[in-house]
């Protein structure tokens, strides 16, 4: 079943290609329904997942290129949740693109499916080489999505995105090959590598740094973040949603699945530096968001802040921090994804992203404004909505690990409220800006339909988080090496 969840997007990508060019107007709606079907399949997978069961489930392990390079896939709670998030956001992104993608629809749908397949591949791979393959595959469609369907500066942004990411991942490839040799040159299987135990120093240290760099660029951890505002801002709405919603999580996931288990000693050695960079990211990202003049850029910088928070939860190395971190990945995917959708909706009407071009939108688009406000408060971590649970768990986990860092990180809740509320005030409140009235109209049925599922989840995850938190468990591969400390651990 997991095979179909992974394979279907690739199949869809091919399927799209055979649709005749004459009917290109229906390509994106069709893709939306196809990916909706894929999401339902993923839901079934989720329902079949046994929380009390084995570490990895739905495992497929077939010999593939050569012994040691197996087609080995499987999911645990963490990766399953991330796959769910991915499969959830893709149909929404398609439906959001119906009006905004008006050229080369076929290519767009093709690359989107390729991207979805690549992302899911990253989350299911249990063979290091297979993981690397998917990690690189998804760069190509993203490059085209930004470069072809993006806005004015798209070429610069797409190049920057690909080259920056590539630098990191090439080092990772070298590290993978080196690791392969160091373990006897027989296998790329993650389980084999883990079974052999961590490498000795200094090899462990250097290989960790290579892996960590790739992941840090992807997250992005300060100061590796500058590709993100450009890529997010220039990408089309669907691209921004997927980029923020899913792609960034691959970096954190990389630490969870590979970075920490394979290099435990090196990780511990650099953990403090990573914590400091992350907490800088929380505050710095927020400060940069505060003064942006472009709405999309503002949301992009807020991602830097949120991702710093997510890294902190992981780095706390306790159960609360870990669960909070994974939970916050889902939250960030929903809230920031939704923010990009909402920015896209109003951009389609006005063709401007400058905050100063707006004012009084709440009067013109009451439903849109109400939705925006809800998502804004979800992003700002208001109790009762999803963001609070994640932030609370992360900050509490961090507090157990290091009180001072937690205090610094918690200032993020003030800055977060400041940049979001200030944005809201300038765009939605005040007198109606001239010339706006003729252009904007409130949400239509299509837009409401794809936003409502997000709203339901935002409230559900805030009121009844157990549905999801019980899925999240610290993988044995991490637990084995590290003492999970924490003030209230019995």
């Amino acid at each position: 079943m997991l095979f179909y969840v992974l394979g279907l997007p690739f199949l869809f990508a091919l399927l799209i290609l055979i649709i005749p060019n004459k009917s290109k107007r229906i390509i994106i709606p069709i893709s939306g329904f196809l990916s909706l079907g894929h999401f339902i399949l993923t839901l079934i997978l989720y329902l079949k997942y046994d929380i009390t069961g084995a570490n990895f489930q739905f495992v497929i392990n077939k010999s593939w290129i050569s012994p040691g390079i197996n087609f080995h896939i499987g999911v645990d709670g963490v990766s399953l949740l991330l796959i769910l998030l991915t499969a959830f956001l893709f149909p929404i992104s398609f439906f959001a693109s119906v009006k905004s993608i008006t050229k080369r629809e076929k290519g767009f749908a093709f690359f989107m499916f390729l991207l979805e397949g690549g992302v899911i591949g990253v989350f299911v791979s249990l063979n290091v080489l297979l993981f690397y393959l998917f990690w690189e595959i998804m760069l190509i469609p993203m490059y085209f999505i930004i470069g072809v369907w993006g806005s004015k500066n798209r070429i610069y942004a797409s190049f920057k995105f690909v080259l920056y990411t590539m630098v990191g991942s090439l080092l990772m490839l070298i590290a993978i090959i080196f690791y392969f040799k160091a373990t006897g040159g027989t296998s790329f299987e993650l389980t084999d590598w883990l079974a052999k135990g961590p490498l000795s120093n200094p090899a462990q240290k250097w290989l960790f740094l290579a892996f960590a760099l790739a992941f840090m660029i992807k997250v992005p951890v300060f100061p590796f973040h500058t590709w993100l505002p450009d890529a997010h801002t220039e990408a089309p709405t669907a691209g921004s949603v997927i980029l923020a919603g899913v792609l960034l999580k691959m970096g954190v996931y990389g630490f969870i699945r590979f970075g920490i288990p394979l290099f435990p000693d090196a990780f511990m050695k650099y953990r403090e530096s990573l914590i400091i960079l992350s907490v800088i990211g929380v505050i710095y990202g927020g400060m940069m968001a505060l003064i942006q003049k472009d709405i999309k850029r503002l949301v992009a910088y807020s991602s830097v802040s949120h991702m710093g928070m997510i890294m902190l939860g992981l780095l706390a190395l306790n159960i609360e921090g870990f669960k909070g971190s994974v939970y916050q990945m889902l939250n960030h995917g929903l809230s920031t994804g939704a923010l990009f959708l909402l920015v896209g909706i109003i951009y389609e009407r006005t063709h401007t992203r400058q905050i100063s071009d707006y004012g009084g939108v709440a009067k013109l688009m009451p439903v849109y404004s109400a939705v925006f406000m809800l998502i804004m408060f979800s992003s700002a971590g208001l109790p009762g909505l999803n963001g609070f649970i994640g932030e609370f768990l992360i900050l509490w986990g961090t507090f157990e690990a290091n009180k001072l860092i937690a205090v610094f990180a918690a200032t993020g809740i003030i800055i977060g409220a400041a940049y979001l509320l200030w944005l809201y005030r300038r765009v939605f409140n005040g007198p109606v800006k001239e010339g706006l009235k003729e252009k904007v109209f409130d949400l239509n049925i299509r837009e409401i339909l794809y936003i409502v599922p997000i709203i339901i989840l935002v409230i559900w995850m805030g009121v009844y988080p157990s549905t999801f938190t019980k899925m999240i468990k610290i993988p044995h591969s991490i637990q084995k090496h590290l003492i999970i400390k924490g003030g209230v651990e019995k």
Partner: protein
Amino acid sequence: MIWVLIFPLLSSFLLVVFGKYLSKKIVSFTAPLSILISFIISLFYFSRASEGIIYKIYNWISVGNLKIDIALKWDPLSSVMVLMVTGVSFLIHVYATGYMHEDKSFSRFFAYMNLFTFFMLVLVLSSSIIMMFVGWEGVGLCSYLLIGFWFEKESASKAGMKAFIVNRIGDLGFLIGIFWILYTVKSADFDLINAAAVSGKIPVAIASLIGILLFIGATGKSAQIPLYVWLPDAMEGPTPVSALIHAATMVTAGVYMIVRLNGLFSVAHFASTVVAVVGVFTAFYAATIAITQNDIKKVLAYSTISQIGYMIFAAGIGAYSAAIFHLITHAFFKALLFLGAGSVIHAMGGIQDMRKMGNLRKYMPVTFYTFLIAGLAISGIPGFAGFFSKDEILASSYFSGHKILWSIGVLTALLTAFYIFRLIFMTFYGKERMDEETKHHLHESPKSMTIPLIILAFFAAIGGYVSLPKFISEHSIWEEYLHKIIYVKSELHFIHSIELNLTLLSSALAFLGVLIAWYLYVKKPNLPIIISNKIPFIYKLLLNKYYVDEIYEFVFVNPFVFGSEGIYEWFDKPVIDGTVNGSGKTTLFLGKLLSKLQTGQIRDYIYSILFGVALLLTLLLMGV
């Protein structure tokens, strides 16, 4: 029991979703009704609450060792609060059906008001500090929404934003306080926190640290120094909002929180001292500003800050039941003051400047008399509600040995009587200073507005008799009802003869305050201007609220915003991104440089081969 929460929430939800399609008549029936039902339910539980009931709804968060239930705690403290919240909220809802009648966002208003009541009940009924935080932030959200209710007005939306962000600063302290509690007590449950503190399981220093952190949260929500700055601006909201949220209920949450954790605070001596000092100083400070304000709602806003200062002061010196006592009487008379002011503003067609009012008692007698009762109550004129509660606080501070703080409190009582009667005389007495157009429209407010005024006036008049001064009766129904929730019982001994003298003193000061106000604003109305001209510096300082807003802007807000801007322009773009782009460009440059080697000319290649061979030979010959 859960129904007490469900009705306001349900009503709010329905109004949000279907509000557009409902007529004003239906809205003005269902919205207050949902609160009335909650009120009836809370009446029902009031009599059974003395033992304390915990009603678990469900397990909210269960991660690691963190287990947080959504559970309601119904004990004497919370049941008194619930009764007040639902009761006052109901009256204000009824009032608002009249006050907001002409507003085009009628249903949106009541959706927010219902939601507010829901979150306020969550706050009050919570059994753990984390669930309280949910209510705490929830009421903050509603406050934000309602302050900025007329969002097209720049000043209103700005005030809403300011309120939320300033409160978030307090919340940071609150949150860290919660973490310290979780860290030391390993539970967020109020009973366990208090029990752990009283039994000495929390080290005293940590208890004080927690106390101060939580109190930072309280200074935000309850508008105390240094985070009070949002409350005066919050007057931008519709007046029923000011009455409900920014006078009677939400702003007292900080007091409630301290009393809820009285076990912890009675151990945390240092924190309690800080609380008391900040409280009484805020009371005095805000009262001095209230003296000079000309906007009727601004006077009441600073008055609220000042009165909450009294409550905080009481909580700080360990007079917990007196703090809650004043909280309740204040809820009645301050809600009444605001609603009366709203009635005045309604009649004046939106004018709030008292310099344009005068002699309104002729036009709106019901508003005048009810307002007068509230004024007498807040001034501490014997017999009215505020007299009993304020005197209990002052007497407690005197007998617990806080003589300096007590004297500040007494002085504030004088100021209070003065500024509130200044307001009354400027508004309801003297010359009619409004223009003809306004005068023509002056009218008494409709029944939906005056009946709540009358009911509140009734309570503002008699609400104090539940707890009489000790020299009259040692037996207080109020203290006995709250007795169970106080962890460390006060052993203060009130010496009757001294207490009587204290009461006589504060009563005399109250009368003096009224008298001065009468002399300055009725007898010699030109005198205030002469005085303010004589001491222009002090007058300007007070009129401009000690320039605190400007100072905050200059010291905190601007450096942060401009600092961020500077970092973006001078660091993020040129340095961090510059390095990235720079390394790209360097690669490109090096590539171009290297490509020069590949000229495609055989001759060049032969030269370089020859050069290489020559170099190698030389090196070999030199024996390297």
